[in-house]
């Protein structure tokens, strides 16, 4: 099915950000004699140009890709041979099919917007050149991740984006906190990556190839399927460990909230729109493999659902606007995994897309807010910004409505579909559905709270903040509006049947379009009394969403915490605002032991055991030596006696033989 077109466009899509990276990272410093010297506009302009360029090219490719649900016109181009020895053959192959094409669009598109946004957001920072080169490098790696036609290449991008997020989170490295956050992100990701590696190794052992095309072809072959089914669970689980690392699921989500210490556009691009969804992409991509292991799938589903709820609860008690968004990201990702887990891969991808739209929007909006409040992130010090930041308010409102799943905004369709598939699908489980609904409610609630604390209610701004307060420039609001439009309208790519029929719109457009790559599971309930069920779910969820959203807005325009309403749950509040003490827990059970072991092994083992043995031998020799030299008394009689004993020895040796 994958006919190879000899078009180098995908390669150019991939390379153009890399070129941008080189220009900003190498050439500009040479031109301007120094790293901090590149003007913000120049650097930003270059970076934006190149990512925009690849967006355009992606658009062209994407257009050529459109086709009906029947077949998948995927481009596979082989650039050069990366590894080839000892039976391990990894060509540097790029693949653009509908799935990766969609993600490429998202990445480049949102990427471009965020680059634009960054130009004015970062303009008074120093070393903007560094910033933009990192951004470009990130785009390169992300594109490689989604375009690589080989798990090893995917891993290449996988680690590459990890590196970039490390660099970008630690962009303001002179602050130890921020630097640590970057380190934490990298290391936690590494833990996941080990799982990914092991998964790859297992897969290679079973299939002897890592090429995606190869895998999917092999998995069409029944006896291969039969052979690897037993080990499928192990493979999928270890790959999923990688996913939990990259996509911030339990138990490895801890890095994402800290990652918020990076510049806000970075959070928008990396930690909301693109990188964190890599795990979802990977699972969707390997769905034939995951299909082989119900166990793994249910694990994915459960982890997703639990994470969603867990993060949602935390989000509701946060006061830092970006932290709220971060936790909401975690929980939304949980939703996606829930979808994957129940086998609704398309729905997951759908939600991935819509989430990319509205979460990027929200982040950028919050960035604009922070920008306006001259770096203030604490919502308790905001309030009633509506009248100062009209554009920001408007766009963010749309975003919040979208995320809360208010009907006919994008989030509504995708989330609703996920919930629906959570019960409708064969391996859907009802209590996961319940969790999903709860989470949806929570989402609406904390989003409303966020909006309320930020834009409505009483004004709590400190004086000088208020003094500098200003709406962001057009360069920042423009992307907001674009994203707002997408967030509002994006959902119509996946209208459910129920409405789809009425709206005269081709229902589940996206899903059908993705079919060839990510096949639909037929929904058993769909046949009989389908409308009823769907209607129930839809109406129920939308009601819940609306109610809790407005509840959130209303309540929290007056107070800041639930405790102010229900004082009884103060401990709970404390627990939540401390994020269940997970960081402290990890510090106890992981970080401290590692440090202890390290000190032990170098301080005790190396010094006293290994080195001790070596020096001990030396000391022993010296000791023996000083003992032996005693017999050299210098008195001739001693020597004579020694000779005499020698003779005795000789005679003894002689007689040992003869007598």
């Amino acid at each position, binding site marked *: 099915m994958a006919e190879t077109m000899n078009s180098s466009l995908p390669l150019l899509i991939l390379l153009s950000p890399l070129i941008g990276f080189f220009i900003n990272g190498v050439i500009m410093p040479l031109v301007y004699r120094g790293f901090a010297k590149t003007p913000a506009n120049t650097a930003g302009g270059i970076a934006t140009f190149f990512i925009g360029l690849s967006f355009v090219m992606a658009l062209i490719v994407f257009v050529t890709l459109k086709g009906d649900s029947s077949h998948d016109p995927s481009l596979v181009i082989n650039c050069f041979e990366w590894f080839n020895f000892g039976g391990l053959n990894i060509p540097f192959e790029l693949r653009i099919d509908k799935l990766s094409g969609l993600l490429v669009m998202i990445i480049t598109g949102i990427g471009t917007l965020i680059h634009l946004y960054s130009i004015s957001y970062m303009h008074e920072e120093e070393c903007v050149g560094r910033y933009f080169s990192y951004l470009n490098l990130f785009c390169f790696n992300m594109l490689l991740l989604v375009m690589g036609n080989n798990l090893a290449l995917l891993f290449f991008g996988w680690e590459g984006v990890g590196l970039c997020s490390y660099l970008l989170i630690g962009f303001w490295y002179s602050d130890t906190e921020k630097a640590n956050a970057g380190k934490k992100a990298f290391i936690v990701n590494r833990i996941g990556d080990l799982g990914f590696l092991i998964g790859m190794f297992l897969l290679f052992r079973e299939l002897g190839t890592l090429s995606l095309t190869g895998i999917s072809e092999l998995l069409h072959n029944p006896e291969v399927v039969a052979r690897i089914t037993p080990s499928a669970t192990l493979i999928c689980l270890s790959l999923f460990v990688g996913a939990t690392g990259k996509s911030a699921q339990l138990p490895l989500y801890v890095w994402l909230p800290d990652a918020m210490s990076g510049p806000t556009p970075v959070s928008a691009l990396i930690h909301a729109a693109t990188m964190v969804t890599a795990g979802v992409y990977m699972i969707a991509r390997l769905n034939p493999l995951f299909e082989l292991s119900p166990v793994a799938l249910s694990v994915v589903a459960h982890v997703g659902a639990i994470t969603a709820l867990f993060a949602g609860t935390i989000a509701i008690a946060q006061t830092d606007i970006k932290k709220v968004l971060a936790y909401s990201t975690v929980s939304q990702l949980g939703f996606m995994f829930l979808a994957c887990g129940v086998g609704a891969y398309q729905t997951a991808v759908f939600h991935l897309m819509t989430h990319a739209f509205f979460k990027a929007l929200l982040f950028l909006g919050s960035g604009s807010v922070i920008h306006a409040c001259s770096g203030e992130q604490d919502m308790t010090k905001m309030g009633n910004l509506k009248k100062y930041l009209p554009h920001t308010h408007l766009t963010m409102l749309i975003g919040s409505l979208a995320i809360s799943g208010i009907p006919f905004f994008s989030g509504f369709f995708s989330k609703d579909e996920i919930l629906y598939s959570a019960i409708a699908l064969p391996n859907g489980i009802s209590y996961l559905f319940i969790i999903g609904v709860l989470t949806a409610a929570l989402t609406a609630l904390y989003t409303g709270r966020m909006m309320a604390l930020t834009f409505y209610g009483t004004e709590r701004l400190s004086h000088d903040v208020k003094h500098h307060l200003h709406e962001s420039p057009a360069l920042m609001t423009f992307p907001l509006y674009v994203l707002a439009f997408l967030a509002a309208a994006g959902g119509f790519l996946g209208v459910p049947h129920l409405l789809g029929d009425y709206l005269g719109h081709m229902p589940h457009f996206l899903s059908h379009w993705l079919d060839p790559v990510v096949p639909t599971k037929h929904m058993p309930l769909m046949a009989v009394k389908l409308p009823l069920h769907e209607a129930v779910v839809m109406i129920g969820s939308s009601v819940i969403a609306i109610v809790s959203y407005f509840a959130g807005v209303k309540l929290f325009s007056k107070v800041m915490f639930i405790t102010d309403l229900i004082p009884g749950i103060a401990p709970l509040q404390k627990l939540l605002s401390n994020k269940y003490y997970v960081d402290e827990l990890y510090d106890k059970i992981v970080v401290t032991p590692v440090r202890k072991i390290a000190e032990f092994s170098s301080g005790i083992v190396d010094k006293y055991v290994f080195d001790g043995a070596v020096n001990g031998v030396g000391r022993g020799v010296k000791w023996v030596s000083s003992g032996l*030299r005693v017999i*050299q*008394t*210098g*008195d*001739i*009689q001693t020597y*004579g006696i020694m*000779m*005499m004993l020698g003779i005795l020895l000789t005679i003894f040796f002689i007689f040992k033989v003869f007598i």
Partner: protein
Amino acid sequence: MTNDLLVQYLAAFLFIMGTLVVILRRDTIMVLMGIELLLNAANLSLVGFSNSSHMIEGQMQVFFVITIAAAESAIGLSILVNLYRNFGSIKTEMATTLKG
């Protein structure tokens, strides 16, 4: 028990005695005498053997051994004199500056 055996016994005994003198006595002059005794014992045994098997090699060697003994004692005594000059004594236990 024959003369030859007796002579050999005597030689052996003298040899051991000589060894003991060399090892046990603590003044160099005695030690030198001990060495002479040793050589003499060896001579005795040589002559005894050669005589008992009707040969003359032994006796011939004895001439040379005696000469050597003379030379050796000459050198020995001069060394002894030298030692006496340096240490003011010929006790072997005096001369134990080199040790360890």
